[in-house]
């Protein structure tokens, strides 16, 4: 071996000229390494592939002309973006390549942003500066940011867009769930604009719980809320029987009685078996509360709790007191104060108490609680942070009980603990943590929720949008949403509106629910006399709606108070109620309006004016519209409905003043009496 090497050395470096030649060859070869690496690089391979693919297409010339070889890059210093993705993804801007199923050549789907202005990694994550597939897409030791899976892509919209967007249903749902499902009671989320996200649910106070329900029910509920109702927001804390026993003992012992809850009513429940269901129906309880029917389907709304087994939960005296005036027990409740009389309360209570499930508490048998159990229960209530959600007398709401999630979307993978067999990525971590929070270790407190897979994806999307980039963006890029206002109506009428919980369904000045019409401009819209009648006996304007305005048994004084307030305060500056008369339009104008209604604008597709011929089901019925709306409102509505109610389905027809006036004349002549209409 040694001899061979010596002879090789001799042949190569025998004389200086040859040695010079050999060294030169080695030198040249090493010089060639860099160009060779460049020549065999992945991006060059993909660019060759692109040109080969393009060659056989009918638009080959255009595509070849657009093609630019070499490393391409989008550089956006203010976003700290250096994205070379388009070195391989060559056809991103070529609309005609939308039919190409193979990456990296497909055109980018249509979005409202320009690639040159936002780059790629702002939305897709990944390593923008990398020029190999592995380094750009995956997380390696040196790089921390893998490509975001497509199912979470909407999280990137949420970095700048703080409000809901029509094109991002998953992000919107995730944000709603985050606020509604109780996450924010324990976890703090501070947005880049300094606002702190607020929970939209309102867990009940437990300070007077013994008035409302029994220790046995609390036990069954704590063991598994889903057994009582599949729509429970309350998660499962997976408590042992002993712990559940002690917590229920503490909650009952800690509860103080409220005066009204224990008084019994003298009135007897109605003997008429139909009275209960019909009062339940008339009061439109089902607009907010659901009951499971025989087929197992949920019938009713999800604003209030499900009532299928309510008879197994509440104490009869408490239920009666609650129906008489819910605000006496819970001043913050979304339930309206219906002003039922004693016999109505008795009827409704009887009807609801019959909705029970004998199996629910059959297996629960509890011995009287000992002081040790109560003390242990108190410790558990503190440990599990029950007071984060519920008001509990004597226990303070804990601060920072759970990790702050303000920048969870950028948490480095190195700081995460993964379960065996799990993919090591942040989205998978978040999704799995929501799905089975206790799997990540002993003694963890986060309870088990019952989210559907789609809900988990939505929540993960919303959480991923809370990341470092959303905090470091140039402020000019942030698109604020329209946050809920804290509008409260003033005075006596305001108190009345709170008492009737108008805001549980209606929205006024960006505050309130979305079940019923927005009333911000109601004073410009309706006639006073109609509103008075509507309060006394609310009919329905839309035949296809199941949810309706209930009757609140208001006194004349209360009706006047509310009507005066609405007519005075909820005025649209662009609509002068008195600028157009409610009658006195010429026959010609009314007739022209009728022709426009049935002809040019074909309003009967959605509305009913004549119940004999019209069948439109979408908009409100207009048979009485002349006694309901003001002429000025109708006119402005014809001109531009969206200016009065954002997002209304009524199309803006860009009507001429004459058309709008004629239609107003026709509609204002619809006063309900069929004879009156026929005469015209």
């Amino acid at each position: 071996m040694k001899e061979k090497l010596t002879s090789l050395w001799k042949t190569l470096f025998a004389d200086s000229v040859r040695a010079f030649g050999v060294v030169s060859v080695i030198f040249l070869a090493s010089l060639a390494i860099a160009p060779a690496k460049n020549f065999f690089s992945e991006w060059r391979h993909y660019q060759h592939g692109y040109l080969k693919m393009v060659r056989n297409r009918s638009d080959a010339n255009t595509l070849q002309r657009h093609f630019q070889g070499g490393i391409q890059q989008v550089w956006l210093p203010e976003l700290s973006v250096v994205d070379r993705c388009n070195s391989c993804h060559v056809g991103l801007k070529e609309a005609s390549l939308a039919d190409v199923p193979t990456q990296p050549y497909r055109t980018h789907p249509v979005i409202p942003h320009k690639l040159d202005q936002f780059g790629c990694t702002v939305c897709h994550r990944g390593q923008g500066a990398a020029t190999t597939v592995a380094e750009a897409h995956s997380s390696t030791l040196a790089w921390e940011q893998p490509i975001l899976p497509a199912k979470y892509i909407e999280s990137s919209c949420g970095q700048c867009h703080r409000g809901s967007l029509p094109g991002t249903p998953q992000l919107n749902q995730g944000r709603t769930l985050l606020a509604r499902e109780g996450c924010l009671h324990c976890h703090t989320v501070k947005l880049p604009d300094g606002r702190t996200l607020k929970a939209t649910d309102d867990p009940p106070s437990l300070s007077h719980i013994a008035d409302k329900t029994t220790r046995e029910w609390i036990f069954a509920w704590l063991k598994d809320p889903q057994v009582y109702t599949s729509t429970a927001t309350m998660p499962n804390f997976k408590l042992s029987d002993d712990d559940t026993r002690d917590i229920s003992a503490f909650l009952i012992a800690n509860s103080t009685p409220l005066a009204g809850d224990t008084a019994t009513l003298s009135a007897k429940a109605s003997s008429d078996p139909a009275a209960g269901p019909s009062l339940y129906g008339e009061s439109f309880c089902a607009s907010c509360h659901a009951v499971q029917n025989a087929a197992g389907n949920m019938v009713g709304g999800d604003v209030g709790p499900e009532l299928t087994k309510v008879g197994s939960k509440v104490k009869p005296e408490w239920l009666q007191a609650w129906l008489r005036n819910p605000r006496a027990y819970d001043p913050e409740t979304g339930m309206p104060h219906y002003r039922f009389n004693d016999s109505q309360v008795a009827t409704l209570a009887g009807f609801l108490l019959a909705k029970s499930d004998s199996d629910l508490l059959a297996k629960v048998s509890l011995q009287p609680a000992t002081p040790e159990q109560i003390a242990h229960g108190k410790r558990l209530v503190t440990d599990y942070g029950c007071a984060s959600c519920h008001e509990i007398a004597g226990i303070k709401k804990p601060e920072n009980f759970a990790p702050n999630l303000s920048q969870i979307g950028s948490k480095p993978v190195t700081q995460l603990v993964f379960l065996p067999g799990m993919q090591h990525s942040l989205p998978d971590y978040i999704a799995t943590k929501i799905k089975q929070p206790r799997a990540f270790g002993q003694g963890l407190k986060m309870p088990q929720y019952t989210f559907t897979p789609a809900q988990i994806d939505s929540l993960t999307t919303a959480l991923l949008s809370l990341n470092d980039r959303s905090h470091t963006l140039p402020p000019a890029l942030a698109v604020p949403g329209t946050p809920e206002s804290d509008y409260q109506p003033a005075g006596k009428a305001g108190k009345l509106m709170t008492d009737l919980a108008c805001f549980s369904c209606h929205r006024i000045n960006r505050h309130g629910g979305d079940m019923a019409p927005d009333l911000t401009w109601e004073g410009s819209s309706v006639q006073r006399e109609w509103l008075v009648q509507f309060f006394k006996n609310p009919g329905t304007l839309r035949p296809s709606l199941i949810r309706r305005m209930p009757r609140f048994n208001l006194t004349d004084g209360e009706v006047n108070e509310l009507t005066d307030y609405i007519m005075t305060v909820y005025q649209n500056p662009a609509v002068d109620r008195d600028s157009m008369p409610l009658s006195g339009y010429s026959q010609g104008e009314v007739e022209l309006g009728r022709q426009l209604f049935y002809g040019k604008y074909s309003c009967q597709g959605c509305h009913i004016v004549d119940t004999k011929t019209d069948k439109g089901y979408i908009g409100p019925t207009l048979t009485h519209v002349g006694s309901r709306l003001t002429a000025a409102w109708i006119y402005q509505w014809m001109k531009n409905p969206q200016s009065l109610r954002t997002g209304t389905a009524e199309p803006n027809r860009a009507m001429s003043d004459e058309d709008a006036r004629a239609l107003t004349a026709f509609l204002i002549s619809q006063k309900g009496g069929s004879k009156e209409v026929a005469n015209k």
Partner: protein
Amino acid sequence: MTRYSPAILLLMISVLAMSVATSCSHKTESAALPKATAFGAAIVESSGGKQVAQTGGLLPQPVVVQINDEQGTAVAGALVEFAAAEGVTFDPANGLTDSSGQVTTNVSLGGMAGRYPLTAFTFDKSHKKVELKLDEIALGYQQTLGRQINDQYCERCHNPESTAQRVSNYDNLDVKPHPFTEGDTLNKMSDADLTAIITHGGPALNKSALMPAWGNTLSKADIQALISYIRAIADPPSRSAGPVFVYANNSKN
């Protein structure tokens, strides 16, 4: 130098072969299938075909398929496997039929907008493959926006189906609107025609005035988005519905 190169080459080839071998063995390991206790003759769809989801997203309803024997009776314990283009995930990807002969799987579609044919297959007694194909649709951003616009403005008339939340107005109309899935008709209309009808109303193309003009309510981008949605869900598929992502069958069977 040239003397050593074959050795190096050999070494490289062997390393390559080894890595291929390990990756292959890895694959078979992860695809450990449950053992079928029964065999059917046919595979049919119970529910879950022709659904629409967002790119990468879960189908709203799980896919349920049923295995029947020659007489059309459900078979329990038969093995069903699901397959589709890369990026589509099944949870679970295979399973034995339950007592009613069915297997249920949750499906997430791939990351690109277009059509995703899914294959569910089983083997009959003679080990012959029996297949069922289901078509699912993934919507991109623009089409999702279009769907939202459809839900808000169009669906009440254009979708004949009523739900508990939405009563359809379809039957109340003297001139019936085209459901947006009606590919036979809508595929023949150009984008320009659809834009004209949506913008200026039915009379723009001598159609019913019951279709109002939306040009002052919806922006041009909204209308484009709506059309992209209509194209995406057309059945039979429209030419501009986007690509079809087929399952590249690279396994040996």
